[in-house]
């Protein structure tokens, strides 16, 4: 029986890797996740046959386990089905946090067992259990904060005086208690303090990080959860957990690096300095010109009689759910012979590829959705760059002002288009709190209003022309 279960775990690990590979191409991606899903179901079913689990119907462990699986699955299923595409990033953060919490809880059970006198499996195993516990707990509480921030439950970036010093102190305390717990027979109090400290550390690390950096943070926590799962896999001697966890850990790290690179912010900067809360004010310089407003009708004419329009969507489009209207407007313009393209900054929105998903949802052909490197040479030939709900990713100070916190970040060169139309809710600064010089440029016109409404007005304006 146990050979059979091992064989199932072996196959599961292999299918997960194949599934991930398939998920990295648009053609096979759907097949990849379905395969991985089937493997997951089979692995879970096989685990009921594991020697540690009693299949007696009267076993309270088994009964409660079924209740736990049903409860967790139902809540997750309903929430994942109901959530709007725009809110996907925080849901991923939440599910990821659950995984981290589960890994930490596995370690907790093992450590509680040790504290009540169970036989140790050796120092290495205890150290791995503790490492997985720290990483899992940090990922759990950190993801919870990320969720709260993106969901708008927690609006401000909180920063205590001497925040980093407190964090370093916490980190050292976690190591000390981790050492106490990992070596020898831990006392129950030490285990408890250890977990509380690790959870607080996750919260404290995530609190000062601004919303603009959240994609990097979520991706990092995703990688961390993978690592925690792998460590607990060593503790439980489970090959499927080790391999799947490690693969996610390394691929997640790579993905995090790609994102941080796109923002030109080393991961250490994201974690240890808060975006826009201090650097922004110091880097302020005089802005020449003023913001010039435009009416929707005029903007519609500008686009309808142009040759080429490049649309630059940002998080504001996601909030306003304007992607369907945008697609409708694009179709109208194309029917008039205008070339319409979409320019996607790698970190537009709250996750990499967030905009791609939303535009795909609206039915935009992905041949017309272009990356930063592909689209930037095209801006000078565009009659209109329509910026909708994007801010920092088109801010020219990233090129010009070395004092700006976003200096050096690759941006979309929307300012190089003949005309720039910016759809924006109000006159305030963007998520990072940095003033956007693009809005004051001579060739820029501001179209104030909610994204969806503004685009609807543009559509009406274009229709009125024919």
């Amino acid at each position: 029986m146990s050979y059979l279960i091992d064989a199932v775990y072996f196959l599961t690990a292999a299918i997960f890797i194949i599934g991930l590979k398939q998920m990295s191409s648009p053609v096979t991606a759907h097949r990849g996740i379905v395969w991985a899903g089937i493997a997951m179901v089979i692995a879970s079913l096989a685990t009921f046959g594991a020697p540690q689990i009693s299949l007696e119907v009267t076993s309270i462990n088994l009964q409660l386990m079924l209740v736990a699986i049903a409860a967790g699955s139902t809540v997750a299923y309903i929430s994942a089905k109901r959530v709007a595409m725009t809110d996907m990033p925080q849901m991923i953060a939440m599910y990821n946090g659950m995984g981290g919490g589960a890994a930490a809880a596995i370690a907790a059970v093992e450590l509680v067992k040790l504290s009540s006198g169970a036989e140790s499996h050796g120092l290495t195993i205890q150290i791995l259990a503790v490492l997985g516990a720290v990483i899992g707990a940090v990922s759990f509480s950190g993801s919870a904060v990320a969720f709260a921030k993106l969901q708008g439950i927690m609006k401000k970036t909180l920063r205590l005086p001497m925040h980093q010093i407190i964090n370093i102190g916490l980190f050292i305390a976690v190591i000390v208690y981790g050492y106490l717990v990992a070596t020898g027979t831990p006392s129950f109090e030490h285990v408890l303090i250890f977990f509380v400290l690790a959870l607080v550390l996750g919260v404290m690390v995530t609190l000062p990080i601004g919303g603009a950096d959240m994609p990097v943070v979520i991706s990092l926590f995703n990688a961390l959860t993978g690592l925690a799962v792998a460590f607990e896999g060593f503790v439980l001697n489970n090959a499927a957990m080790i391999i799947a966890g490690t693969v996610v850990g390394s691929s997640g790290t790579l993905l995090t690096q790609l994102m941080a690179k796109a923002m030109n912010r080393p991961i250490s900067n994201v974690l240890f300095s808060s975006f826009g809360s201090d650097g922004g004010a110091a880097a302020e310089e005089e802005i020449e010109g003023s913001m010039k407003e435009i009416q929707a009708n005029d903007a519609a004419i500008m686009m309808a009689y142009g040759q080429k329009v490049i649309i630059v969507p940002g998080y504001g489009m996601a909030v306003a759910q304007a992607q369907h209207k945008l697609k409708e407007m694009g179709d109208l313009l194309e029917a008039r012979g205008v070339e319409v393209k979409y320019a996607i900054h790698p970190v537009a929105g709250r996750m990499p590829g967030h905009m791609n998903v939303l535009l795909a949802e609206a039915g935009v052909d992905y041949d017309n959705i272009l990356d930063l490197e592909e689209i930037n040479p095209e801006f000078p030939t565009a009659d209109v760059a329509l910026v909708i709900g994007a801010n920092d990713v088109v801010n020219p100070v990233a090129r010009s002002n070395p004092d700006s916190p976003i200096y050096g970040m690759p941006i979309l060169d929307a300012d190089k288009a003949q005309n720039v139309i910016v759809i924006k809710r109000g006159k305030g600064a963007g998520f990072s709190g940095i003033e956007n010089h693009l809005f004051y440029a001579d060739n820029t016109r501001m179209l104030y209003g909610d994204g969806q409404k503004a685009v609807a007005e543009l559509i009406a304006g274009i229709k009125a022309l024919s």
Partner: protein
Amino acid sequence: MIEGLPALYIFMLSAFTGYEVISRVPVILHTPLMSGSNFIHGIVLVGAMIVMGSAEGALELTIGFIAVAMAAGNAVGGYVATVRMLEMFQHKPKNEGASS
């Protein structure tokens, strides 16, 4: 038992595998892929079940219950979210790709 040097080998090779598998992903798939890898570490469910199955006493059972519920949430939520995102790429008409 997986321990000692073989354990280290498994760890190293898996790490390189993960790195290689992801390295050529188009930006368009980054979010679904993050969600997909989020689903894959839902395999923690297997570990949570084993731990809960061997739990003794109320405290261990409670922590085990939390572990299983959260792990199931990770797996199911991660799967549904990923499928929902990927389905959007599916309904696309595939007739224009070559010419434009």
